[in-house]
């Protein structure tokens, strides 16, 4: 009793049959082979299953798959362009913001969106923005650092791009 849904997944069109009661998280992982969104609690408390739907971060564990019909879904698999890491991804590696790595994809998507909304965030803003993502390893210090660093690098890129114009 479901239907075929069509949506864009990391830029490529997908069409797939889903049941009404299937969740986006499980469809991405089990039917489409996109495993970066993780199950962490299933009830919207941990942020490990975060994906971007039409550019907005949402929790795929609480989203019916059928609802993304006609939309665009982005996961970290879709961030690196031409196999070059995104600035945010690089910053996470460089600042030691990763430990076990299970929560990392969710944090990276949040950081990406955060910097899109506010290219010059202060620390309070960053901490508020990522409070929906839990990490048990890092105490968040190096994650906050990585986001600050990515912000600096993005600013540098923008000013350099302006200079070369």
């Amino acid at each position: 009793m479901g239907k075929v849904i069509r949506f864009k997944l990391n830029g490529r069109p997908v069409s797939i049959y889903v049941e009404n009661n299937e969740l986006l998280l499980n469809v991405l992982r089990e039917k489409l082979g996109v495993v970066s969104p993780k199950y962490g609690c299933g009830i919207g408390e941990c942020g490990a299953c975060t994906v971007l739907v039409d550019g907005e971060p949402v929790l795929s564990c609480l989203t019916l798959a059928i609802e993304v019909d006609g939309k665009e879904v982005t996961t970290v698999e879709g961030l690196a362009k031409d196999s070059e890491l995104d600035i945010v991804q690089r910053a996470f590696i460089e600042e030691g913001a990763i430990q076990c790595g299970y929560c990392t994809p969710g944090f990276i998507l949040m950081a990406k969106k955060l910097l899109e909304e506010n290219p010059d965030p202060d620390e309070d803003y960053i901490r508020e923005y990522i409070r929906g993502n839990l990490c048990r390893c890092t105490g968040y210090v190096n994650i906050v650092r990585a986001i600050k660093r990515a912000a600096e690098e993005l600013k540098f890129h923008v000013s350099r791009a302006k200079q070369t114009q």
Partner: protein
Amino acid sequence: MTGEKFVKPIKPKVDINKVNTHIIPFEFEYFEPRTVKEAVELLTKYGGEAKILAGGTDLIVRMKQRFIEPKYIINIKKIKELNFIEDRGDYLAIGAATKLREIEKSGIVKRKFEALYEAVRSMAGVQIRNMATIGGNLCNASPAADTAPPLLVFEAKLKIVGPNGERVVPINEFFLGPGKTVLKPNEILTEIQIPYQPEDTGSAFIKIARVAMDLAKVNVAVALRTEGSIVKWVRIALGAVAPTPIRAYKTEEFLVGKELNEETLKEAAEIVKTEVKPITDIRSTAEYRREVSGVIVKDALLRAYERISKG
């Protein structure tokens, strides 16, 4: 097994073998009405077997936890007439399916209804606020619903549509108990009407919780008008201290005409403590909730007062 005393089978509060938060392990029919009319028709047809899906951050959770197993899901996210923030002269109208994130980003809410802005910002995390709706927060009728106290102090009205047309209910009549509202099974909350307050009104919202992303142990909103330091008009509402969000009428009454000084605030805090009827649960104790209700009412009054002074 000697010495093992048999006791009457105890009834577990959760069926541990039914809960499975990986999946929704039961089927349902799914609808995406485009108009309120269609939605109401569906509700009328399926009545108590149907549930409205707005943000899903509560409904889907409870389905996974198997607290509810609706046979029909009516997704109202695609109903454009439920998703708006609109200036209607006397009041601000917010569509019931408007996402919390849109409300917090709305300049007018931040400028005119600061307590509501603060309440929304205090809720969950960005992802949840991108999904959850204001109507959902109210219709779940959690005693701790964060949007309820600010709407209570602004004396918002709720527009409800059913098969026989619409009705408008003042928010203080909307909640009946935990999870219970005046909504009939075939009715839908469509908009929240928040009257603009006079320019000299200050408002504030404060929430006490275990961590930054949490349900409230206690929350409070106040709206205040003063003449100099004399209280001219005040509204106080609290959450998580009674079966529904409540107004603190006695405290309000006490405050009117008083000078807003340390003495008054202290007395007000004491009166608040007599108005709340909190319980002890895993999040806090009744004793703590009562005590802190007084403290945050005092804090919220001061914050609102500062805002008036700053203009």
